[in-house]
């Protein structure tokens, strides 16, 4: 008994030990702070999931080859308790279809969404606990659910035990949930209709269950090398198309059935972000792959350090000379330009220096205010005690910040930005040249242009796994006067990889998006993507408008406009947009097809400031003349990263919509300054829609008022006041 107690005591101490030596462990077990990925594509052991999570703001990509599957996964972590992943699986024991003329030897492709929720965080006596659903709204080829527990016994040993349903019931046991409700006893393939893409809540956690488990061990001083061993709970008799043609019409050979239930594998981290995976599973199959994962949501200290404001020296001399008002304005113009801030107007009212600026370098509005105030402080004579900074975008003033110079100076050296922010008075503003004494002449038209390479891709179609072309994009914006601009974008084909593209999905709706294949094929040499005139106007301090005319996106042109009411001191906005559109010809010239539509939406936005979660609702008439609502949730992180998901419900039936049943997807906007090393407002924007259909399609509106007026709401300053003095 004593011996038993001793053992228990040592075990108890070991449970606590991984908290005590965490920092030394970081040196002994390199790259140990992030979990690793399974062959399946989500965080896990080899085939099995674990309860671990990446920090909120992380994005990941995982690729693995596990015969007969090639799996690519894109994962997002909008919260530290939620993993959302999109799985794309190339199933190599089945053809894309049973019509050889249609798909040739192209293998079957399966797309699915997975979710995992962390319900308990690890503590000395409680294991990390997560619940997950695989293939939540897909074909259920890989459909399964699980509850999983992970516990670090030592700092380099992580144990996992789980209970699975669906394809994770390999060692079938009675479903413990049967005791709660008899409906959990039997499992159906999926709920609802035949178009897939729908949630199947009645299926989840039903049927017989199974257990799984294993561990992950990090070798000491071996650059983070991990060894994994697991008891595989996969039911290979139900996963995929196990018996070839017997399981599925398109399948041509069976999947190798396991000789053993134990899988072993290694993970080798190349660095903090990239892991290589190698495993031997089922006693007969060798797997390999890699994963790339990182937290892109954090503020980059490197970026801050490398881009400190340019210093102004000989400040006292400048201040003396700038007692002359005209010289002060010109000096401000020059000095602000050095900080990538462009003075539009200026005025001096007694002891208040008013400036109206424009900038497109800094994502952070407090940083813009701070740099402007610092510059003005360095060049302004001592009698000026207040700076009033207004910022305009697209010719419309967005905000006005009134800053006490004394307060700004007082807190600068110690970087007490919170105290400084309290003394900054933010308010909405509206522009008038009469408000300013100094109105530097701008030589209109002002032209901005850029050239950038572009790759267009089509992934997972029946004509080939990956088809694409390489193009050169030409972008131009000409500003004719404040608030009136012309936007053009064209492209020239450099390499055409769409020769094989024949796929043209059938639809019962007007082909407002499914025809995109025709547009891809017919624009090999050149294409005009946008060619539109925009007029922006602010009617009052909180109302913004835009009217546009021309080629408005790749597939539609016409005219219309937007109106947005965005109260400055609130966290919501309401607006509407209305467009009269004609579908463009497939060669993307200035010609149009016969199809035309009046499309419009009532738009509502609500931002929860603490979590930075935005809910956007867009209800109205869509491009295919269906009516309904698009619901979009997204979260913004400190770095500017945004992750979001959307779905749309309209008045068409699932059958009319086609495969997928309804429109849905997720997206992310990654601020490019993370990679560039310089401040920039440019984003890399991409998203995943399981399938492109015509229902719930929205005009791809450039310079959308919601985005354009982001800085016209005080709540968007609060997240970044720590940038004030940077």
């Amino acid at each position, binding site marked *: 008994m004593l011996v038993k107690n001793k053992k228990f005591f040592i075990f108890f101490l070991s449970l606590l030990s991984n908290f005590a030596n965490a920092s030394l462990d970081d040196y002994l077990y390199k790259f140990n702070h992030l979990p690793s990925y399974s062959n399946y594509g989500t965080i896990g052991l080899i085939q099995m999931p674990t309860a671990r999570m990446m920090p909120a703001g992380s994005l990941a990509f995982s690729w693995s080859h596990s015969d007969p599957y090639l799996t690519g996964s894109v994962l997002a972590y909008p919260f530290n308790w939620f993993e959302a992943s999109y799985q794309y699986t190339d199933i190599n024991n089945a053809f894309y279809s049973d019509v050889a003329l249609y798909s040739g030897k192209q293998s079957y492709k399966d797309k699915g969404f997975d979710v995992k929720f962390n319900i308990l965080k690890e503590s000395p006596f409680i294991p990390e606990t997560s619940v997950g659903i695989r293939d939540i709204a897909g074909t259920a080829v890989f459909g399964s659910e699980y509850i999983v527990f992970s516990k670090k016994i030592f700092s380099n040993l992580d144990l996992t035990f789980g209970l699975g349903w669906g394809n994770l019931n390999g060692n079938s046991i009675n479903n413990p949930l049967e005791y709660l409700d008899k409906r959990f006893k039997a499992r159906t393939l999926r709920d609802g209709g035949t178009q897939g893409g729908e949630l199947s809540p009645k299926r989840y956690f039903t049927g017989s269950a199974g257990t799984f488990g294993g561990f992950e061990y990090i070798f000491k001083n071996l650059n983070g090398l991990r060894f994994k061993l697991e008891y595989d709970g996969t039911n290979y008799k139900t996963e995929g198309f196990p018996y070839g043609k017997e399981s599925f019409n398109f399948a041509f050979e069976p999947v190798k059935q396991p000789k053993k239930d134990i899988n072993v594998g290694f993970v080798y981290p190349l660095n903090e972000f990239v892991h290589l995976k190698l495993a031997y599973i089922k006693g007969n199959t060798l797997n390999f792959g890699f994963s790339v994962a990182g937290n892109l949501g954090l503020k980059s200290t490197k970026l801050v350090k490398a881009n400190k404001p340019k210093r102004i020296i000989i400040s006292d001399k*400048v201040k003396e000379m700038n007692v002359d008002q005209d010289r002060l304005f010109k000096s401000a113009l020059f000095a602000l330009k050095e900080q990538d801030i462009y003075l539009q107007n200026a005025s001096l009212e007694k002891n208040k220096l008013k400036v109206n600026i424009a900038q497109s370098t800094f994502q952070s509005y407090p940083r813009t205010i701070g740099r402007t105030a610092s510059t003005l402080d360095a060049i302004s004579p001592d009698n000026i005690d207040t700076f009033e900074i207004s910022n305009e975008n697209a010719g419309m003033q967005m905000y006005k910040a009134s800053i006490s110079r004394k307060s700004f100076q007082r807190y600068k050296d110690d970087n007490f930005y919170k105290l400084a922010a309290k003394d900054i008075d933010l308010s909405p503003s509206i522009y008038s040249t009469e408000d300013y004494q100094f109105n530097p002449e*701008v030589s209109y038209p002002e*032209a*901005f242009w850029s050239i950038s390479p572009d790759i267009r891709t*089509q992934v997972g179609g029946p004509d080939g796994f990956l088809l694409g072309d390489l193009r050169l994009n030409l972008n131009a914006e000409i500003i004719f006067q404040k608030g009136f601009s012309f936007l053009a974008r064209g492209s020239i084909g450099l390499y055409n990889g769409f020769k094989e593209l024949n796929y043209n999905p059938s639809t019962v709706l007007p082909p407002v998006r499914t025809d995109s294949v025709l547009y891809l094929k017919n624009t090999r040499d050149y294409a005009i993507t946008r060619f539109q005139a925009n007029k922006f106007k602010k009617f009052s301090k909180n109302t913004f408008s835009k009217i546009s005319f021309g080629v408005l996106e790749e597939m539609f042109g016409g005219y219309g406009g937007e109106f947005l009411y965005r109260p400055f001191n609130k966290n919501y906005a309401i607006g509407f947009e209305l467009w009269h559109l004609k579908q463009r010809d497939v060669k993307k010239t200035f010609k149009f097809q016969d199809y035309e539509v009046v499309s419009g939406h009532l738009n509502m936005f609500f931002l929860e400031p603490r979590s930075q979660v935005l809910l956007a609702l867009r209800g109205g008439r869509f491009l295919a003349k269906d009516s309904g609502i698009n619901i979009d949730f997204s979260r913004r992180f400190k770095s500017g990263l945004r992750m979001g998901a959307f779905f749309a419900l309209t008045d068409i039936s699932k059958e009319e919509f086609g495969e997928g049943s309804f429109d849905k997807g997720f997206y992310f906007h990654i601020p490019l300054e993370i990679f560039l090393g310089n401040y920039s407002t440019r984003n890399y924007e991409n998203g995943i829609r399981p399938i492109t259909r015509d229902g719930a399609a929205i005009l791809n509106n450039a310079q959308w008022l919601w985005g354009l007026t982001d800085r016209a709401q005080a709540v968007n300053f609060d997240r970044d006041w720590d940038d004030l003095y940077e």
Partner: protein
Amino acid sequence: MSKILPLIFILSSCGAIGMQELPIIASQIYDFEKNNTLDVTKEFYNTKKFSFIKVNKGSGQSIMTLSTIEGNKYTWLNSLDEKIVTLNGRIIETKGFEKNMLLTTCKSSSGLRDFCDGYYEDQSHVSQTVFFSNPKALIDINSSIQDEEVNSPTIIHNHKIKLAKENFSANLINWKGVNYFWFDPNDDMPIKTIQYTHPMIEAIEIEFYFIYE
């Protein structure tokens, strides 16, 4: 349209016909933070009023200026709020970098001129305890010193100088390497060094340029 690589955008170029520029007191703006490729020439050296070091930490170069001298300890600073403290050329503290260190204890087998006081005596053995930041840990390091006569690696000296090699190892975390110290045997002043300061970053290379009034 799908854009699969952020690099595509990074590669993009941008030009602008911007606002009207007004020529005014051009000298008031002084950009001193963009000098990433800095060659210290005789002319550059002659323009400097204060002693400085050229620091190359892999990700970029910077010039750090001598701020204070306390015994044999020299503190060097730059405009990025980075700080290096050297003891006769040996780095004993860094601040403001991504990974920082502080030498907490040092014991040397040599007698009068020992490594812990900043001297590179041949065949001496040293044991040190270093505090690392990010992640925080105290690590014991053992090392041995050997020196040899070589040519100067910088523009300042034209006579034979000494190179000390410190073979170090921290067995606990399986970290080992060689630090190099070039110094003038006439006055024991450092000329150049290549040192590892943290197990998770590359070695730091420093060239020392002393200016005497």
